């Protein structure tokens, strides 16, 4: 891929307008052309522990946002709230009706063949019979797995499982795609291939994306905007306008160093600290 890539079109026609969920005041609504996600003054506590405090977040339609943070910084909590897995009653959280999650572990149902796992993503769309299979097949073709339609999940490699998981998420054309460290368990080369795949799928389907990761290079390579979550708040924000695919050149390294500083790592001593905070692969491989 040699040409610089344009931003995806805003507000693809198939996306329904964002809807309010998790209950909040009625005067608080989003317009059709407004952001895909809006979170205001969001606070989340588990017992005495405050995980997120007074957090504000907006994600435009079709925007690719990466969320960085140390372990326990509340990244996953925020993602789960947006996914509707951890409902937050009485809080101001707006997200599209059609959301899909890709987890770090692919979470395919081992007793359903690959295409049926993808078809799970179509629940509630009222499709029947051949229509479901055709949609699942199309989604699997997009991720390059049209030859594994009838395979059992147990026979897939880690990368293949994650691609099925991506197909399952995208088969419903979600307005919001939530990625919870989806590549953390993959080897470095597979991970790079997955990055390309995610970008091409994002261009085609144009969902808003929230990628939770602790890999700074991954965030800089993929996102329009990188947020650093610290102590329950967004501590830093970095907008990245570099054309994709992004080589690990000077500008890339500058952004990377700034983000690492926000995460409490001095880029000058990056090597020593890398093991603790920044996961493999290092920026040099991203080319």
């Amino acid at each position, binding site marked *: 891929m040699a040409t610089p890539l344009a931003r995806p079109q805003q507000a693809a026609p198939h996306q329904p307008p964002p809807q309010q969920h998790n209950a909040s005041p009625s005067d608080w609504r989003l317009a059709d052309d407004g952001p895909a996600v809006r979170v205001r003054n969001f606070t989340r506590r588990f017992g005495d522990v405050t995980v997120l405090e007074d957090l504000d977040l907006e994600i435009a339609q079709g925007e690719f946002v990466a969320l960085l943070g140390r372990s326990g910084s509340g990244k996953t909590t925020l993602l789960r709230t947006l996914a*509707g897995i951890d409902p937050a009653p009485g809080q101001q959280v707006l997200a599209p009706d059609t959301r899909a999650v890709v*987890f770090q572990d692919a979470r395919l149902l081992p007793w*359903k063949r690959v295409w049926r796992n993808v078809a*799970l993503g179509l*629940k509630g769309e009222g499709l029947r019979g051949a229509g479901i299979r055709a949609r699942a097949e199309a989604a699997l073709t997009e991720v390059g797995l049209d030859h594994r339609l009838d395979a059992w999940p147990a*026979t897939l490699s880690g990368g293949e499982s994650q691609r099925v998981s991506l197909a399952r998420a995208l088969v419903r054309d979600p307005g919001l795609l939530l990625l919870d460290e989806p590549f953390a368990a993959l080897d470095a080369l597979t991970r790079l291939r997955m990055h390309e795949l995610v970008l091409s799928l994002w261009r085609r389907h144009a969902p808003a994306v929230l990628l939770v990761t602790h890999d700074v290079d991954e965030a800089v390579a993929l996102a329009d905007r990188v947020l650093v979550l610290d102590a329950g708040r967004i501590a830093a924000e970095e907008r990245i306008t570099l054309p994709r695919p992004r080589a690990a050149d000077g500008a890339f390294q500058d952004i990377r160093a700034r983000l690492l500083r926000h995460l409490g790592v001095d880029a000058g001593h990056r090597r020593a600290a890398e093991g603790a905070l920044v996961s493999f692969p290092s920026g040099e491989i991203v080319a």
Partner: protein
Amino acid sequence: MSVVAADRKPVRFRLPRLRIRGGRWVSPVLLLLVWELGSRTGIIPERILAAPSAVAETFWALSVSGELSSNLAVSLARALVGLAFGLAAGVVLALIAGLSRTGEVAVDPLMQIKRTIPTLALTPLFIVWFGIGETPKITLIAAATVFPIYLNLFSGIRGVDARLIEAGRSFGLTQAELIRDVILPGALPSFLVGLRYALGVSLLVLVVAEQINASAGLGHLINNARDFMRTDIIVVCLLVYASLGLAADLFVRTLETRALAWRPSIIKS
């Protein structure tokens, strides 16, 4: 850093290897030969144990006369009807306890209490309640098979990977769809383990239940044979019980390879 001594072979004791294919048959066949020899020479009197050849003859005679098959059918029907009741009750109770906390609180303590009472100890009570006809026999089998089904299905339901349920929820599956697509298939392997136990238990209890004044069935055959000291008939019936056990096991295994085709161990084989 360490150097592995390559020239030292591990010393292992080995029995001399039998070069016959399927060497596992040898010892049972030897036993049969010794048994036959003992009977022929009169070391083993017939009233203690009939010779294998006599057992085979009796087996043939009973099969030809239809006596064996008709009694077998009666016994099999008892086991299956009892098992069907036990299975149904076990599945229903496990679903109630497994799928809701209230259900668990209501059902599980009772089942645990029931578990502490050996089912066969209920025999006298069942005879008092249900007489000596078919009812106590079937009830006994049903009561004994409920527990393996209940326990395994219940723990199977509770053991379903919570991350899969969460994933299902994130895709908007309704509660009914979650149960059908995620929870029940996830609990199926445990259920089949329970079914295998239940089949075994049903045969075990059948043997005891059939001693209650049966007028037909394998137990009836054995009781009559005992009265006339026909050890050959008793052995034939024991063999039939054994093959029932084998058939039950084969049945569940076949069921497993079909229903659990997605399991890595089955995919490989």
